[in-house]
């Protein structure tokens, strides 16, 4: 397995003959932590889903660790979905959810082995959720749910973690815990891609930032990318960049996006 964690070339997705993502070309080196920001409807979720092959792409190629996305390579990519993708009615425990991460590698007619269970336990431990192992997933807080889903991706032995809006609807202390956890996973060698509205967290905690509005407007170190000029280009007229006491604060549609 050679090559960067993600190598994307000319990835383009259209819905109802309108481009949601056009000509995205970039690569993410191994061990990087990339924050993808951009306006609502700017194609963040579409890009994540196109990377995973969940929406059909009109053109373009995706390579993960130098390989095309087949069933085996898919296991190397761990996906943490948005809250509304999940059917919360299902009465499953946190441990059940993490164990699902072992399922793609499991042969038909086989039961989960002691090793599978051990890996699920370890993954829950890594994200600090061992104490809610038996709790019903629906009864956990939003932040706890995100961490359990991360544990599932870890149990899957994913090398690349894709998180779609992991901190939206999560309270501030839990947001910080999730970002700190992601940093620890990065230190452990994982490559991490996160879509978020939280510009300031990207500025402070990520080593790569991408601005996305249908096209990739900018990609690089947060200091180089999160500039007033590029932010204005990305958010068009919908974002106000304020400079308050030396800190950059971004406001979209009257909504507070977070400041440093």
């Amino acid at each position, binding site marked *: 397995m050679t090559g960067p964690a993600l190598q994307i070339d000319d990835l383009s997705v259209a819905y109802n003959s309108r481009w949601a993502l056009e000509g995205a070309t970039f690569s993410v080196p191994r061990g990087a932590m990339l924050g993808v920001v951009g306006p609502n409807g700017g194609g963040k979720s579409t890009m994540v889903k196109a990377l995973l092959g969940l929406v059909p792409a009109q053109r373009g190629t995706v390579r993960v660790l130098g390989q095309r996305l087949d*069933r085996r390579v*898919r296991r190397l990519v761990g996906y943490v979905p948005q809250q509304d993708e999940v059917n919360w009615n299902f009465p*499953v425990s946190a441990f059940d959810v993490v164990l*699902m991460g072992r399922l*793609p590698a499991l042969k038909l007619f086989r039961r989960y082995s002691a090793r599978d269970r051990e890996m699920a336990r370890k993954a829950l431990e890594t994200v600090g959720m061992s104490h809610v192992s038996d709790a019903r997933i629906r009864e956990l807080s939003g932040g706890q749910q995100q961490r359990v889903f991360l544990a599932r991706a870890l149990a899957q032995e994913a090398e690349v973690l894709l998180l779609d809006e992991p901190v939206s609807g999560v309270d501030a202390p839990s947001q910080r815990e999730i970002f700190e956890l992601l940093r620890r996973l990065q230190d452990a060698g994982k490559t991490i891609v996160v879509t978020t509205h939280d510009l300031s967290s990207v500025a402070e905690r990520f080593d790569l930032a991408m601005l996305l509005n249908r096209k990739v407007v900018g990609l690089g170190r947060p200091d180089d990318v999160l500039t007033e000029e590029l932010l204005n280009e990305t958010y068009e007229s919908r974002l106000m960049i304020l400079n308050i006491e030396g800190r950059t604060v971004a406001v979209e549609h009257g909504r507070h996006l977070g400041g440093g």
Partner: protein
Amino acid sequence: MDFLEQVLEPLQFGFMQRGLAASVLVAVICGILGGFVVLKGLAFIGDALAHASFGGVALAFVLGFNIYLGAFVFALATALGIGAITRRGRVSSDTAIGVLFSGTFAFGILIISRVDGYTTDLFGYLFGDVLSITASDLWTILILGVVVLLLVAVFYRQLIFVGFDPTVAAAAGLRAGALNYLLLALLGATIVTAIQAVGIVLVVALLVTPAATAYLITRRFHHMIAASSGIGAVCAVLGIYLSYYLNVASGAAIILVATTLFLITLALTGLPDKAIEPEGGEGEPV
């Protein structure tokens, strides 16, 4: 006559033995599939497949084929048709279900309206006539039931993963689309086994009601489907005895026992946080 005699008396008749065996078997299968039906919000499509199967029953009856086969083919074709129409994205699945099931049901009515004299037999399929089940019906139900249960057992974890988190399941390499069709095919087969026991019109109740009751009293999925099967079996037995002693329709008696049990459970548990959210709706956790 003491209680034991009352329990044993109906069992001296072969039709009662077969009726009891068939309805318990059907209730167990429906209880397990019902877990998925309730959690995935498949009640409407389940009802639709049951009604659609009537076209197959009527056609097979007239042409002299096996009516179970006719029912299954129609249910399966309707499920595939709904999937195919919905996938194009121009018509919502609700609408596709409504159009297809009423069409195939009307086709069944049209056929039986031309066959005088047989209509009473065919109406038995509409409203259920478990006490007229023959030994060969019972074998068909048993074989279909075993096949359904084996397939659920083999794909159990996959079905739960896809039901709980379809996007991630697909992203991780599970064949989510194929698993959804498998579930619909299993639903079709289950409905076919239940047609004679409770009737096409009431099949959906056997799928939904015991599973909904089980959902109220359990916290894990495997407990839920175990409870759902158990509750279904109890309803089947009580319903058959009620039907024998009160001389009322067996299918209706089974369903009314299930309905009563559900309402009692709902009143006793009464926790607002147990409410089932519509899938894809505001699934915000508390």
